[in-house]
């Protein structure tokens, strides 16, 4: 573990962009409700792998861009992502050593925290969730985590991002 920062900034940015685009792909019928929040998951990966680079501030910025791109309340995802990045940065030493399917449970908790925060804020501005389905994307995220982890780890290794 070093505190050095070594290149790859554009790769990280590109992975966030890809995650954002992936969020716009239409899904079949019932799967739509389980659509994982890809951007949050990519954020979790990077702040777990490179906590000295992708921290609370970076999470906040990504969230803010997400709010603009998706046309939400400015700062809603920023707050949720900052908290997710904080949680990851505080616990990465414990999570990183586990196998991906094991990590998925921690990711589930982070994604649940994110969903609850986002929906609290939606509730405050007059869009309370109507049922418990709003937590479903976190389950979808948990199911997809091992795959995402493997892909991003390979990208991470290939470009030797430090």
């Amino acid at each position: 573990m070093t505190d050095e920062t070594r290149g790859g900034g554009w790769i990280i940015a590109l992975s966030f962009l890809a995650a954002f685009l992936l969020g716009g792909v239409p899904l079949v019928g019932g799967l739509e409700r389980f659509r994982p929040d890809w951007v949050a998951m990519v954020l979790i990966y990077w702040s777990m792998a490179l906590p000295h680079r992708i921290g609370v501030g970076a999470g906040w910025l990504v969230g803010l861009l997400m709010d603009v791109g998706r046309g939400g309340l400015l700062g809603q995802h920023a707050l949720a992502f900052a908290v997710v990045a904080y949680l990851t940065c505080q616990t990465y030493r414990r999570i990183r050593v586990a196998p991906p399917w094991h990590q998925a449970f921690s990711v589930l908790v982070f994604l649940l925290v994110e969903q609850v925060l986002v929906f609290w804020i939606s509730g405050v501005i007059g869009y309370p969730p109507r049922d418990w389905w709003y937590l479903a994307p976190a389950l979808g995220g948990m199911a997809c985590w091992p795959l995402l982890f493997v892909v991003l780890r390979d990208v991470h290794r290939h470009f030797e991002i430090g």
Partner: protein
Amino acid sequence: MVALKPSRRIQYLFTVNPAAILQLGFWVALSVATMTLDHRYRLLSGLRDVLATAAYPAQYLARLPAEAKGWLNENLAGRGALLEENARLREKQLFLSVQLQKLTALEAENRRLRSLLESAVNKPERVLIAEMLAVDFDLYRHRILLNRGRQHGVYVGQPVLDTSGVAGQIVQAEPFTSMAIFITDVNHGLPIEINRTGVRTLALGTGNFQELKLPHIPNNGDVKVGDTLVTSGLGGRFPRGYPVGAVTGVEFDPGSPFASITARPFARLDRIREVMLLESEVPDIEGTTAAAPAGARPR
């Protein structure tokens, strides 16, 4: 891999960095500040413009797969299918042009009569076609992002129509994109009248694309299943007389003062791809066109 390098300082598994909490506090406070400014005072439109312009390429990219599919469909369709479609469209065109002839005569007559009465003449409206860039990924908010913005003359409060009825209105206009809210969004209310009786009321969104509710009609109101709802023109946002939907359910509950009435919008909001933005000059109570938040409570 990086992890193999020797560490410069010892790291413990369960340490909590107190500086990190302060940092988190700072960013959380900043988000609360931006949300408050954005929601309550709408002070951040400049910042939003800058960021929205920066985000436009990403939004455009997100639409590419759908565009490619449409392009492939058009280009790979068989000759037979194209001929068939051509014939169908020709027939429809003929039918519509006959109807239009009748309509032009009627419109002219209507205008003449109105000018005789010295009442406000309905000005002809201009229409801007916009394509959908993205839907709100939040399943509970019925909003879509359109590929036309202030540069194209889009303004906040502009009515949005589908080919079959009223779809919603613009709530946010950025330089190159704009955000529309559907009439089925839970925070949208649309001033309507029932075409058969002329009863005026509000149609509120339910969060379901197929349903509107009309909660303010008394139990002895004259409403039947199948009644057509049209915009009433009150509130100064939507011009009068555009079709909105049809009543699908009327239930009179003796215990409550109001009937519970549901309607289905004509616009097919869940499968919309292109919409029309109506450029209308509705005589507004406040004097300016579409400046007053009278028709709806956006967000």
